């Protein structure tokens, strides 16, 4: 009955709360015993609370949000050593966890977090009091009453609405839709709806830039109209009602009664989100559930009324609007986190497994350059398919090159086996490409985020996307989605200046935000750059010093080192803390996520000119073109991208320095020689430079000549990570399984150069 977002919220939050408790206790104990708190643990607890709060906020569980927000604030004080993690605080936070647990139970049974206000209120009061104590304000027993009362009234108001909502839903449930509509119909309905909503959304977004374009209004209208029709036909009356109201608004715009102001479009976009969510709910459990239905209806009616009165701003509109925008923002974070649980679910529930969804249906809108037809497949199935294909290749080789055939000549057999060989290669190529998806998927989501955030912040921003068709592994794409949201948000929040400020210093009023994906020397680079303020070295240093992250003698730190500081947990140069940013959790999460996929972040910034962040992600599981080389018995794959040339060395071109480093003169350049066999402790065919081959590789500005025995050939290689057990090895980026089933290590040229250098230095 509960929609999937809520369900995954409940289970995730439960896990987090379970996780928090032991940490809390540990923290309390260590604090009592030694008077010190472990910053790592505090951060961990903080993050967990933060995540619960974020999702709860999006789903509208306000009590949970309030409670976790207060807990978070208290923890922040603990982290900054302003509050002690004594008995009182530990106990209080543990009780907070208990309360959140109770609230989650409540949500699971009644779909709302109401009914425990008294408990919540008392905990919140206690927390607030502790926060005041921590801040050094008078620890009096009278907490700020007015704030409380205000929150209280808002609370009860939404509670009522939710209660109404509940009772309305119960009425619907009695009428069993499933009796009339077959699962196939439902499935088609959800698929089509997704497409239609996509169409509406893209038309609306374009419309905002070009409010006069009638064609776009018509397109949005058509999409919505078909959607409404489908809803009505399938019997989802609430959706039909809402979409009808939305349509009325569009109708008004179409007929010129109203203008396509950005505020109106904003509301329409919000409705699209509501529909989408409802559709997701339907596809999962077949029932239509819309949160805050009466509120939405009122909201729509108000807008329509405002058109009729020819009064552009309805009175109630701003009130309703405000929390909405925040919700929308939270939605982005949530959307990112959605796909993984969905996949998990499909492995658990056989009923949902059959469901085929089109997550990114083809869009007719002219701005969409990439047209895709997708089907959702369980990742584990895909992985086993890839493994099976690998086996197939090996089996094929075993048959066609069977030793029993030696000495015979079968003309027909030869012909069929070469045919088989070709097909197997094709299958292999095809399967390998299946796991790869273009970054367009995550890039596109930024359009909406940038749109919403810039509107909210009152800034004009032009978003440019480059290299959308760069393909990255599915898992990697999931892991970089969140960091990307954080970075884009930071650029908009802190980087790009408001229009007035920009024009004042001679920049274009419209800020520029660029997202680019590209392959770069065996890595994938995701570049996020803006032309805003850039990072303020002095401010960072000052903050870091205040927080005790650095010592006084930090003047000598390089820019890169200084910028790295922003990834420290709790670091924020923002002066005020809001719900969205400023606590310094974001960048910490960005770094953690990128490190998870063994990536790095480069920061380039010029004060006043902008900030450029490069997420450098290794090509785990990506396919590369590699050159297969042999050293003794070992076969290595060198990424073709990093190879400049291969040469045979003449003896008189070699210079040896006194520390034993050999240099080879290639044209006008002196290139250091890396003897791979020495680094890897293997026996080569020949140790003489002129008898082997030198593969000249480049990494950024450095180059080196790797000594090998023989080049075997070029091949496409699927990069596999070496086992976790083995860990990272400098100079090796992974391995690949070759056609004959053998494993070839893939050389990481950058790491190899470093390794060779450190060896010479030692």
């Amino acid at each position, binding site marked *: 009955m509960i929609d999937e977002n809520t369900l995954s919220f409940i289970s995730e939050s439960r896990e987090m709360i379970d996780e928090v408790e032991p940490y809390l206790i*540990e923290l309390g104990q260590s604090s009592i015993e030694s008077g010190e708190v472990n910053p790592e643990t505090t951060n961990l607890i903080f993050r967990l609370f933060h995540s619960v709060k974020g999702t709860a906020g999006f789903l509208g569980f306000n009590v949970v949000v309030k409670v976790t927000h207060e807990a978070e604030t208290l923890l922040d004080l603990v982290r900054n050593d302003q509050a002690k993690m004594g008995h009182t605080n530990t106990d209080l936070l543990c009780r907070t966890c208990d309360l959140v647990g109770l609230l989650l139970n409540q949500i699971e049974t009644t779909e709302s977090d109401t009914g425990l206000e008294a408990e919540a209120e008392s905990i919140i009061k206690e927390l607030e009091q502790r926060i005041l104590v921590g801040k050094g304000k008078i620890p009096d027993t009278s907490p700020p009453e007015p704030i409380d009362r205000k929150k209280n009234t808002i609370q009860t108001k939404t509670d009522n609405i939710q209660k109404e909502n509940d009772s309305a839903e119960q009425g619907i449930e009695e009428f069993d839709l499933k009796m009339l509509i077959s699962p196939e119909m439902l499935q088609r309905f959800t698929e089509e709806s997704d497409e239609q909503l996509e169409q509406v959304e893209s038309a609306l977004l374009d419309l905002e830039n070009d409010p006069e374009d009638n064609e776009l209004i018509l397109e949005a209208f058509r999409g919505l109209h078909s959607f409404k029709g489908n809803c009505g036909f399938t019997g989802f009356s609430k959706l039909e009602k809402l979409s009808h109201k939305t349509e009325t608004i569009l109708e008004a715009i179409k007929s010129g009664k109203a203008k396509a102001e950005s505020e109106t479009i904003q509301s329409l976009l919000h409705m699209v989100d509501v529909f989408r969510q409802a559709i997701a709910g339907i596809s999962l459990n077949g029932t239509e559930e819309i949160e805050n239905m009466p509120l939405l209806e009122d909201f729509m009616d108000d807008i329509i009324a405002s058109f009729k009165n020819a009064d552009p701003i309805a009175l109630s509109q701003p009130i309703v609007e405000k929390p909405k925008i925040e919700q929308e923002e939270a939605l982005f974070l949530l959307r990112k986190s959605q796909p993984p649980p969905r996949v998990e679910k499909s492995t658990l529930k056989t009923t949902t497994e059959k469901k085929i969804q089109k997550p990114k249906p083809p869009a007719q809108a002219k701005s969409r350059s990439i047209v895709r037809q997708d089907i959702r497949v369980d990742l584990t199935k895909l992985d086993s398919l*890839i*493994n*099976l294909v*690998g*086996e197939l290749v090996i089996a094929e080789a075993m048959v066609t090159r069977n030793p029993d055939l030696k000495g015979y000549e079968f003309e027909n057999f030869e012909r069929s086996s070469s045919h088989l060989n070709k097909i197997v290669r094709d299958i292999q190529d095809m399967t390998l490409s299946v796991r790869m998806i273009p970054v367009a998927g995550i890039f596109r989501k930024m359009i909406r985020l940038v749109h919403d955030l810039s509107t909210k912040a009152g800034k004009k921003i032009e978003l440019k996307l480059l290299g959308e068709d760069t393909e990255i592994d599915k898992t990697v794409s999931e892991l970089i989605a969140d960091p990307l949201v954080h970075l884009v948000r930071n650029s908009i929040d802190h980087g790009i200046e408001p229009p007035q400020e920009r024009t004042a210093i001679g920049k274009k009023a419209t800020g520029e935000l660029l997202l680019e994906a590209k392959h770069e020397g065996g890595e994938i680079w995701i570049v996020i750059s803006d032309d805003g303020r850039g990072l303020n070295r002095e401010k960072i240093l000052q903050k870091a010093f205040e927080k005790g992250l650095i010592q006084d003698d930090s003047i000598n730190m390089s820019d890169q080192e200084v910028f790295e500081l922003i990834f420290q947990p709790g670091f924020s140069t923002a002066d005020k803390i809001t719900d969205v940013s400023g606590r310094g959790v974001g960048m910490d999460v960005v770094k953690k996520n990128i490190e998870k996929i063994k990536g790095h972040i480069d920061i380039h910034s010029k004060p006043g000119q902008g900030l450029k962040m490069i997420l450098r992600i290794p090509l785990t599981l990506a396919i590369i073109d590699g050159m297969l080389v042999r050293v003794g018995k*070992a076969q290595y794959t060198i990424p073709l991208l990093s190879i400049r040339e291969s040469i045979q060395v003449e003896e008189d071109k070699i210079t040896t320095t006194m520390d034993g480093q050999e240099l080879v003169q290639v044209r006008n350049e002196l290139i250091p020689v890396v003897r791979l066999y020495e*680094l*890897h*402790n*293997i026996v080569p065919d020949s140790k003489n430079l002129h008898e082997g081959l030198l593969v000249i590789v480049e990494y950024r500005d450095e180059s080196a000549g790797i000594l090998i025995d023989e080049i075997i050939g070029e091949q496409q290689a699927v990069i*596999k*990570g*070496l*086992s*976790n*057990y*083995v*860990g*990272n*090895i*400098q*100079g*090796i980026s992974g*391995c690949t*399984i070759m056609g004959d*089933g*053998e*494993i*070839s*290590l893939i050389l990481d040229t950058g790491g190899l150069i470093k390794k060779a250098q450190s060896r010479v230095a030692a």
Partner: protein
Amino acid sequence: MSEEIEVLNEDLYDDGEDTMKDRYFTFQVGKEEYGIEIMYVIEVIGIQKITEVPDMPVFVKGVINLRGQVIPVMDVRSRFGMEERQYDERTCIVVVTIKDSAIGLLVDMVSDVIDIPETNVDPPPKISRKPGSRFIKGLGKIDNQVKILLDVQKLLYDEELEQIASVAE
């Protein structure tokens, strides 16, 4: 902290694997027979080509391709500090899984799957000169024979490897 979690994991395993309780997979290394809890064992494969990986401790011989999965292989002999010997047709790779990663154990020869009730298991010897003794979990007595029961967790993750892991991270 990490120790706590490991202990917790072990508890979980024990609870969930009632049917496999007290069952041991035994193999031979040198003259003695060793046993590991059966729940860790996934499969046994013959010796195959091992691709050497640089910068590994001596007892990690490299990686093998197990139907598309790349798994590291540990030579149990050299892990015990025994002298290495040529692999022959009896040499086997016992694939075990722990902490979600599969690892191959190179042993001289596999023996059997046997039940050793807890009551027949003696604690490890207190005085020992062999470097391998720290992997011993207990000594199982069965039909006048003694099987040395190994702690798989320690066998795979003790000391050196943890250092490697931490350097890598």
